[in-house]
């Protein structure tokens, strides 16, 4: 590139060693040329790096979003399959219970049928319907939080769900479920990433805790509870409802029951 030169005072000239001496390049011009060369070199390198990065990021992002969409599709399909399997499981359990009663009563073991039903009910292996309360726990919405993103204080943790479950037990609840998962003797709740694991299933927010209990007295205890009032003031969303004709599903993980029973000395 042939750049125009600035006029300079006391301009020094140097002879071009390769020329015959007829043409000379001013020293200022050479420095300027070198500086411009370096400048454009930097601009060129940075431009190419930036373009390359943009192309790579685009490719990476499309790969990630492709994988994300694929997993979401798979998750939706598995959730639908899970729903069907649970419905089938519930129907089969009902049929088994009916047949068990029929078999025992036909053979004159009606007392055995009563004690079996009692054990099943206490273990949480039968569904239960009655009046009760529904507690819904949800993270703070982003608009509630001052910083634009939800802080730890604005998230529902497993301890919050456990607290509500323990409170409902102390109110005399006869059956409790968290997002449809029946609370049994071995149930625990732990945070796993953005979800909470209840029994062997993971559940995202909102957490809907249903309990069969005396609705009015339990509702009064829940609304007056100091910890829940404090959590609600920290922008998490907590809602209490008195509900009529609630159905709490049975615990149906027979593999887990078999495993616990086998460890406790009861074998098939």
């Amino acid at each position, binding site marked *: 590139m042939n750049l125009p030169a600035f006029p300079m005072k006391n301009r020094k000239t140097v002879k071009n060693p390769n020329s015959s001496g007829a043409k000379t390049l001013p020293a200022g011009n050479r420095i300027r040329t070198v500086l411009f060369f370096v400048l454009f070199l930097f601009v060129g390198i*940075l431009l190419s790096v930036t373009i390359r990065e943009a192309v790579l990021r685009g490719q990476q992002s499309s790969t990630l979003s492709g994988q994300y969409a694929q997993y979401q599709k798979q998750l939706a399909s598995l959730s639908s399959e899970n729903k069907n399997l649970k419905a089938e499981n519930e129907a089969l359990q009902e049929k088994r219970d009916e047949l068990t009663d029929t078999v025992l009563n036909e053979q004159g073991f009606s007392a055995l049928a009563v*004690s079996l039903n009692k054990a099943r009910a206490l273990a949480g292996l039968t569904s239960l319907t009655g009046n009760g309360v529904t507690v819904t726990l949800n993270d703070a919405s982003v608009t509630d939080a001052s910083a634009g993103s939800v802080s730890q204080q604005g998230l529902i943790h497993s301890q919050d769900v456990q607290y509500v479950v323990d409170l409902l037990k102390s109110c005399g609840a006869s059956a409790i479920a968290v997002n449809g998962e029946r609370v049994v*003797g071995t149930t625990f709740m732990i945070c796993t990433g953005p979800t909470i694991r209840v029994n062997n299933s993971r559940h995202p927010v909102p957490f809907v805790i249903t309990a069969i209990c005396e609705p009015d007295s339990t509702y009064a205890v829940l609304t007056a509870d100091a910890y829940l009032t404090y959590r609600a003031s920290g922008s998490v969303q907590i809602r209490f409802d008195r509900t009529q004709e609630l159905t709490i599903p049975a615990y149906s993980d027979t593999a887990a029951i078999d495993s616990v029973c086998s460890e406790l000395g009861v074998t098939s």
Partner: protein
Amino acid sequence: MRIKRLTVSFFAILAFLVLGILIAVQLKNVNTKNAQSEYAEKDLTELQEQVMALMRENDSLSEQNRQLSSLISSMGEELSGDNDALQVIMTEKAKAEAFAGLTDVHGPGLMITVDPGQDASVNAKTLLLLVNELRASGALAISINDERIVAMSEIRDTGTDKPQIVMNGNSYEATSPFTVKSIYRESDINRGLQLIQSLIEQLGTASDIVVSNGDDIQIKALSEDSLANQPT
């Protein structure tokens, strides 16, 4: 001459401007790229984990449904004169009773004593934290002062002048020591011990909490007259 000078200055300014913008863009990219890719990968990993968990759950449900279908079919045979199904029902009953906490059980596990010390009391919150931690670490059966902790067992404080702790409808003096027993699978005991020790450190309560493991911990069944033994 003046035009030439202006042209050079213009090019120089333009080149520096482009250089400055590019450097700024590049620096910003370096910062945001790391954060973005970290979040994107984290989200994807969480989604993968959810898919895997649901796959396992569906496999387990399919197996359960298969077993139930087989049981129903054997009960149908019972109705037509086959005696095997009665045995199956008796086993089901034994399992339901064990799972409900209606049978005495024993096995390897942990023994925790909570001593409030002089002029102090144990509160229900401490016992609830211990029970929840025991469950989370895989305890199969739990009792507090021989009161079997079952699905709907309540543990709550009551009384102010004379504090007490109510479990399964029965009251216990909160100023007395409490003994928490639990039975584990052999493979889970060490994990349980570590988690309970860690919880005790976090609690830092005035109560003296001591945990030890045992080879044959005895846990009694839920008492017949207990409030938790009355199904609705």
